[in-house]
């Protein structure tokens, strides 16, 4: 127990990330199922409007910040140091700090579901209820008087710190901790996409931090940054939020694209087609991703010039995205494809992401977006890219790396049940949403008129959502049952090419007995240009020093939610207590003897 609380081992932190994020994924999924149950018919199952608003707000917030990002982070943590031939990340304690901040931030946000009595709210749940992008001025004290929005803005500030700390850590890890010979264009594509993602994190999160701080000043101190009554402009919030929010979309999808770019070559027994093009298209996507934020705001009346610029820039993103898809198909083409569950999910990712990408083009066009934005058509789009894209990609990664992470293989039979249930469920759930949207069903409504003619489509969506729920339980069972089995996975069960497969499954605490010297992009494979790398010695030739662990990352992290609780209750002594813990933690951390 203590060794887990104080761990600074990237592999353990990766597992902590994984299980925590998976738990939040189930919570977010449960919220989605209640939403779907309510919408199965126009009259619903009696979910109150206020509760419904909390559910969709927390579903979006949870899935984005507490499930998808940290599930990617689980792989960054576990896999990246192994892929680049390192003993750990550049800053192991900072890494632990990121995890604890994420966990505590997530718990803080979700505590709002049961915190009502503390605020005299008269009901149990005071969860955030202004939507996951919390548009001003609905979030103002005047229109959202309860603590709901405070939970949201404080929780997201905490989570932002976790993401930023991890961002600095992984940028440095990938650039600086590579094994000798691992030049940039020898980096595995997952490491490349992670690097790009982390650059987006460290540039996008400061922007939302500023937006949240300004909102906090409006709510706690009475400023008017987003309030027209004092000359402020609610549209400024939209600009700041989406300047973060659109890069955030790529923060969510690029790691999944990286995973797919690992899985397809392995199971086709062919190198990634057009490696450099795939890498540079990732860079281009990230770069363009910074210049398209206002396509979320076409309905707000920015004027024809701004609309044209942002519509054009958005359409451009389709090009590097299309290039990636063609290269993935090029990878499969001419291969010897083994239909493992991991490959199925990777192919499913491509098939579904195309649908999300193409519906994306229909709302990149500003005029057609005026009929689509804020309807179920957009809900369908985001779920095809974030579920059909990110989640299927993450599942591909889970089946792929599970043996490396645990030393046990997942059941392929259950895996295939999981895959087909997920595919059928997600298409039943999300495809009819295109039609509900085109027939005029806005998003974020807890009830709709039976006369709209969308009840049938909604019922199908609900059935599909429950199938996805069942599929996720199948996967959970698949994971849990492996824990009773002996550790039998071979070092390289898939005959893959990258360095993480050169060491035992699960890897020893020091990862590599000797740091390998890399001479090519596919070190474990025989290609026409080179043979496989010589196996590493089974035992370290010289003793390897591994750091012991530290309490201070967790203690320092604890200061943040305490400060947030103080701010929530408007009780300054608690804020200062949290700050004190933070400062003491930082000092003890800085002066702690901690050798790598």
């Amino acid at each position, binding site marked *: 127990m203590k060794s887990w609380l104080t761990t600074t081992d990237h592999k353990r932190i990766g597992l902590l990330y994984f299980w925590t994020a998976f738990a939040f994924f189930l919570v977010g999924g449960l919220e989605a199922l209640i939403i779907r149950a309510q919408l199965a018919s126009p009259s619903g199952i009696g979910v109150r409007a206020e509760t419904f608003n909390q559910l969709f707000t927390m579903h979006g917030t949870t899935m984005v910040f507490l499930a998808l990002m940290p599930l990617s982070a689980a792989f960054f943590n576990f896999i990246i140091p192994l892929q680049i031939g*390192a003993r750990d990340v550049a800053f192991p304690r900072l890494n632990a700090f990121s995890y604890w901040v994420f966990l505590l931030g997530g718990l803080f946000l979700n505590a709002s579901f049961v915190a009502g009595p503390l605020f005299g709210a008269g009901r149990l749940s005071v969860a955030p209820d202004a939507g996951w992008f919390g548009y001003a001025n609905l979030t103002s004290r005047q229109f959202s008087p309860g603590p709901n929005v405070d939970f949201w803005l404080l929780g997201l500030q905490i989570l932002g710190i976790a993401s*930023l700390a991890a961002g600095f*850590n992984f940028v440095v890890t990938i650039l*600086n901790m590579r094994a000798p010979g691992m030049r940039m264009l020898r980096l595995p594509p997952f490491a490349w996409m992670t690097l790009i993602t982390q650059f987006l994190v460290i540039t996008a999160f400061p*922007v939302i931090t500023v937006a949240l701080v300004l909102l906090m000043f409006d709510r706690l101190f009475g*400023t*008017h*940054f987003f309030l027209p009554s004092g000359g402020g402009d609610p549209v400024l919030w939209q600009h700041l939020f989406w300047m973060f929010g659109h890069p955030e979309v790529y923060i969510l999808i690029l790691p999944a694209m990286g995973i797919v770019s690992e899985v397809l070559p392995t199971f086709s027994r062919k190198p990634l087609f057009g490696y450099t093009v795939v890498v540079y298209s990732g860079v281009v996507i990230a770069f363009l991703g910074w210049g398209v934020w206002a396509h979320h705001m076409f309905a707000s009346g920015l004027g024809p010039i701004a609309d044209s610029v942002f519509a054009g820039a958005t359409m451009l993103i389709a090009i590097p995205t299309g290039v990636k898809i063609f290269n993935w198909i090029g990878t499969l083409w001419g291969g010897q494809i083994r239909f493992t569950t991991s490959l199925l999910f990777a192919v499913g990712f491509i098939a579904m992401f195309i649908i999300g990408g193409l519906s994306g083009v229909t709302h990149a066009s500003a005029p057609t977006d005026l009929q689509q934005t804020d309807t179920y058509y957009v809900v369908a789009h985001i779920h095809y890219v974030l579920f059909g894209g990110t989640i299927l990609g993450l599942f591909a990664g889970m089946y792929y790396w599970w043996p490396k992470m645990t030393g046990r293989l997942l059941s392929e039979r259950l895996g295939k049940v999981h895959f087909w249930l997920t595919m059928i469920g997600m298409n039943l759930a999300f495809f009819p949403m295109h039609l509900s949207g085109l027939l005029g069903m806005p998003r974020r409504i807890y009830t709709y008129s039976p006369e709209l003619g969308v009840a049938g489509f909604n019922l199908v969506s609900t059935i599909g959502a429950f199938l996805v729920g069942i599929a996720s339980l199948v996967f959970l069972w698949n994971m849990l049952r492996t824990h009773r089995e002996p550790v039998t996975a071979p070092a390289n069960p898939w005959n893959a090419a990258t360095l993480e497969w050169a060491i035992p499954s699960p890897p020893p605490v020091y990862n590599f007995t000797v740091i390998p010297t890399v001479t090519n992009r596919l070190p474990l494979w025989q290609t026409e240009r080179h043979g496989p790398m010589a196996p590493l010695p089974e035992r370290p030739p010289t003793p390897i*020093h591994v750091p012991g662990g530290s309490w201070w990352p967790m203690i320092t992290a604890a200061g943040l939610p305490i400060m947030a609780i103080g701010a929530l209750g408007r009780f300054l002594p608690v804020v200062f207590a949290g700050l004190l813990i933070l400062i003491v933690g930082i000092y003890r951390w800085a002066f702690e003897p901690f050798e790598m």
Partner: protein
Amino acid sequence: MKYDTDTHAVAVAHGHATFMGLDSRKMAFWAFIGSECLLFGSLISTYLVYKGRSLVGPYPHEILNIPFTSFSTFDLLMSSLAMVLALAAVQRGDMKQGKLWLFVTAFLGLIFLGGQVWEFSHFYHEGLGLTTNLFGSTFYVLTGTHGAHVTVGVIWLLTLWVQALRGKLGPANAMTVEITGLYWHFVDVVWIIIFTVVYLIQ
């Protein structure tokens, strides 16, 4: 832990033999500074977007005292000079000079902060509160965020100074001082931009 022996550290992980030949902490700090640029960029943009949109006074030209703030700016610039001298002294192992210049840097930082406290209270008495108008809100949040950065810098410098007094800071820790200097210079550069945007271009 099983392999936790004190024999020797792995060089590649400790910043001496990194892939890029750059200390990991220093690289992380550059990434941090990049991130901070976006933070201040957003705050400065907010200030500019709301410029001239206050519904009631006091307005910037009625209240900003350019001569006084020019002195503060000069003071902060001099502290950057002192920081350069402190780093040079630590690097060549002259801890006597090192201690002196670390203290001077922190002291000049404190003077700047004192100036800001005086300025804020003066403005407050002139009727510009945080919530008075958009100018007040954007001004206090922007300069206050910068002031918080200076405060962190001063505490950091004083920590190094105390370490130096206790004889625990030497040329071996030059990288720590260098990173402190990076931070301090960055905070200084940000102030130059704020001074230009808020005070000089009205």
